[in-house]
C-alpha cells in the first residue's frame, strides 16, 4: 500500500499544502520546526487511528475550526481517494471515494502506517498508557473490524466511573442495583478487549524477537502481558494458544476481581481494576550474561532501549506485512541522527527492504545512508519538490 498524494488544509502549521510521494523512498528535509513531522503525522492520520503524538485537537491549525486531509492512496490494485475532516470535540469524519465512510475503522482497512519517532523510546521507559495504546492501535491495524471493541470498552468504563463517583450522593440501594448491571457490561467489554490484546501480542512476539536478534546481534527479548486481574498462568496459556482464548473465562476473572475490590471502588469513586490498568512487560536477556530476563523499564541501557523500541516497531511492520499481505507505509521521524553507525546501517537495510517509506531529517546527510529517493523540502509550512 502507498500514499501517492496528500493535501493538507489547516493541519498543524500547514494552511494549505500538497505533497506527492514516490512508491519507494521519500526524504523530507528542512530545518527544525518547519513542519516535517507534521507531514508524517498527516500520513499516519489517514488510517483513522488519531495522532501518534497527542490529542487530535492539536492537529487543527491555530485559529481554524477543523483540519482537512485529502489523499490518494493505493492498496493492491485499488486506487482510493480518502478525505478526513478532523473536528476537535466533535469527532473525525471520513469520506472514501467521496462517499461517507461508516466508521474510521474502514480507513484502517485501506491504509496503515508504522510510525517511529524520537519519542518512541518512551514505549520502553514511559508510562503503561503508551504501551497499551501501541497494543490497542495494533489490534485495529491487524483487524479493522475490531475498531468497536475499544470504543465500547471506553464508553462502558466512563459510565461505570460516573456511577461510582455519584454513589455516595445517591440513595444506596438503587445505585448498587445498577452497579451490578455496569459490572456485567464492564466484564464483557473488558474481556473482549483483553482477548484482542492478548492475541495480537502473541502474534507480534515472534516478529519482535527476530528483529531484536537482528539488531542486537544476539540476546533475547520477551514480551508478556501484566495484569492485576488475570493470573499469570492464564496469561501464559493465552499467549501460548491465542486461538483458544475463551472470553467468558476472562469475563469471570474480571468479575471476581471487581467483586473483591468493590468496597474500595465505592470509597474512591472509580473503577480500580481492569484492562485500563494493564501493561506490556518487555524483558531482555543480554548475550553471555547469566542474569536471565530483566525488565527493560528498569534495567536496560540507553542502547538496549533504543534497540528494543526499534524491534517493537519493525516487528509491528513485519506482522502487518504478513497479516495484510502488503507492506504498510513506514514513517521514520528524525531517527537516523539518534543512532550509532551500526544501528544506522541496519535500519537503512530495513528501509530499503520496505515498500513505501517516508523519512524526515534536519541534516540531509543523516539519511543519505538509506539511499536516494524523492526529496521534499519543507520551509515554514510550504512544500516543494527538492
Amino acid at each position: 500500500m502507498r500514499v501517492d498524494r496528500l493535501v493538507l488544509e489547516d493541519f498543524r502549521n500547514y494552511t494549505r499544502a500538497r505533497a506527492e510521494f514516490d512508491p519507494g523512498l521519500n526524504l523530507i528535509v528542512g530545518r527544525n520546526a518547519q513542519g516535517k513531522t507534521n507531514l508524517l503525522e498527516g500520513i499516519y492520520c489517514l488510517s483513522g487511528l488519531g495522532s501518534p503524538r497527542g490529542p487530535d485537537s492539536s492537529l487543527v491549525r491555530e485559529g481554524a475550526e477543523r483540519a482537512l486531509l485529502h489523499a490518494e492512496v493505493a492498496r493492491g490494485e485499488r486506487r482510493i481517494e480518502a478525505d478526513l475532516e478532523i473536528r476537535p470535540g466533535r469527532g473525525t469524519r471520513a469520506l472514501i471515494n467521496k462517499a461517507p465512510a461508516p466508521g474510521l475503522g474502514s480507513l484502517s482497512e485501506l491504509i496503515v502506517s508504522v510510525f517511529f519517532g524520537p519519542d518512541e523510546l518512551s514505549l520502553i521507559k514511559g508510562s503503561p498508557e503508551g504501551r497499551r495504546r501501541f497494543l490497542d492501535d495494533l489490534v485495529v491495524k491487524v483487524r479493522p473490524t475490531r475498531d468497536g471493541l475499544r470504543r465500547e470498552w471506553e464508553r462502558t468504563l466512563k459510565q461505570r466511573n460516573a456511577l461510582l463517583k455519584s454513589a455516595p450522593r445517591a440513595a444506596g440501594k438503587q445505585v448498587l442495583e445498577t452497579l451490578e448491571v455496569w459490572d456485567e457490561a464492564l466484564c464483557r467489554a473488558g474481556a473482549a478487549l483483553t482477548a484482542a490484546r492478548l492475541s495480537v501480542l502473541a502474534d507480534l512476539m515472534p516478529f519482535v524477537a527476530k528483529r531484536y536478534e537482528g539488531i542486537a546481534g544476539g540476546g533475547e527479548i520477551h514480551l508478556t502481558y501484566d495484569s492485576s486481574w488475570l493470573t499469570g498462568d492464564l496469561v501464559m496459556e493465552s499467549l501460548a494458544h491465542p486461538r483458544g482464548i475463551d472470553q467468558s473465562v476472562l469475563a469471570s476473572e474480571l468479575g471476581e476481581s471487581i467483586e473483591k475490590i468493590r468496597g474500595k471502588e465505592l470509597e474512591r469513586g472509580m473503577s480500580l481494576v481492569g484492562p485500563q490498568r494493564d501493561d506490556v512487560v518487555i524483558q531482555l536477556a543480554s548475550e553471555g550474561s547469566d542474569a536471565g530476563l530483566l525488565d527493560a523499564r528498569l534495567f536496560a541501557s540507553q542502547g538496549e532501549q533504543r534497540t528494543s523500541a526499534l524491534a517493537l516497531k519493525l516487528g509491528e511492520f513485519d506482522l502487518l506485512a504478513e497479516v495484510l499481505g502488503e507492506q504498510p507505509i513506514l514513517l521514520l521521524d528524525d531517527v537516523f541522527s539518534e543512532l550509532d553507525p551500526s544501528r544506522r546501517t541496519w535500519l537503512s537495510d530495513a528501509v530499503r527492504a520496505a515498500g513505501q517509506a517516508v523519512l524526515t531529517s534536519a541534516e540531509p546527510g543523516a539519511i543519505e545512508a538509506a539511499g536516494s529517493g524523492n526529496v521534499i523540502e519543507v520551509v515554514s509550512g510550504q512544500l516543494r519538490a527538492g
Partner: protein
Amino acid sequence: MYAGPVQRLIDELARLPGVGPKSAQRVAFYLLKIPTAEATRLSEAIVEVKEKVHLCRICFNVSDEDVCEFCRDGRRDRSIICVVQEPPDIVAIERTREYKGLFHVLQGAISPIEGIGPEDLRITELLGRLQGNASDPQVSEVIVATNPNIEGEATAMYLARLIAPSGLKVTRLASGLPVGGDLEYADEVTLGRALEGRRVIGG
C-alpha cells in the same frame, strides 16, 4: 449581540437540540423576514402542542388525550408490552406492522454520565402495569426494545433483573447484522452479538 428581541430569539433557538449558535442565527433572521401570519402559525403550533399534547397516563407515549391511541385500541394484544426509550421508537416499530401489542415509553435510558438513573425513568410505572391492573390485566411477555448501544443495553439488563423474578417472559430485540449487509465488513462487536443471538434454522 443584536437588539434585545432578536438576541432573545437567537438564544431560545440555540437551546434546541441539534441547533448551534450559527443555525440559531440563520433561523432567527429567516423568521424576521417571513410574513407575520406565517410566524403566528408557527408560534401557535408550539403553544398548541404544549397545551394539548401530554404523556399517556398508562404508557407515557405522547397523546392528545389522557390515554393514547394504542392503549385505547381494543384490538391490540394486551398480553405483550414492548418497552422503548422514546416515543419515536414506537413509530419505528409500528412501521413494520409486525407488532400488535402494547407499548411502554421509559423516557430515556440509564446513563450515569448524564446523571440518569432508574428513578428518572418510567420504570416504577412499568412494574405497576406488570402486576396487573384494569388496563393491563394479563401481561405475559415484555419485549425490551431499548437502543442497542451501551446505555440501552444496560437499561435492558437492569429491567431483565427486575422483571425476571416475577416469572414473566422477558425478551430482547435481536441485534446483529443489517439485512443486505456484507458479513466480511461487519464490526466485531456487532458480529459477536449476532453470534450470541443465533437461532436454529430448518429441522
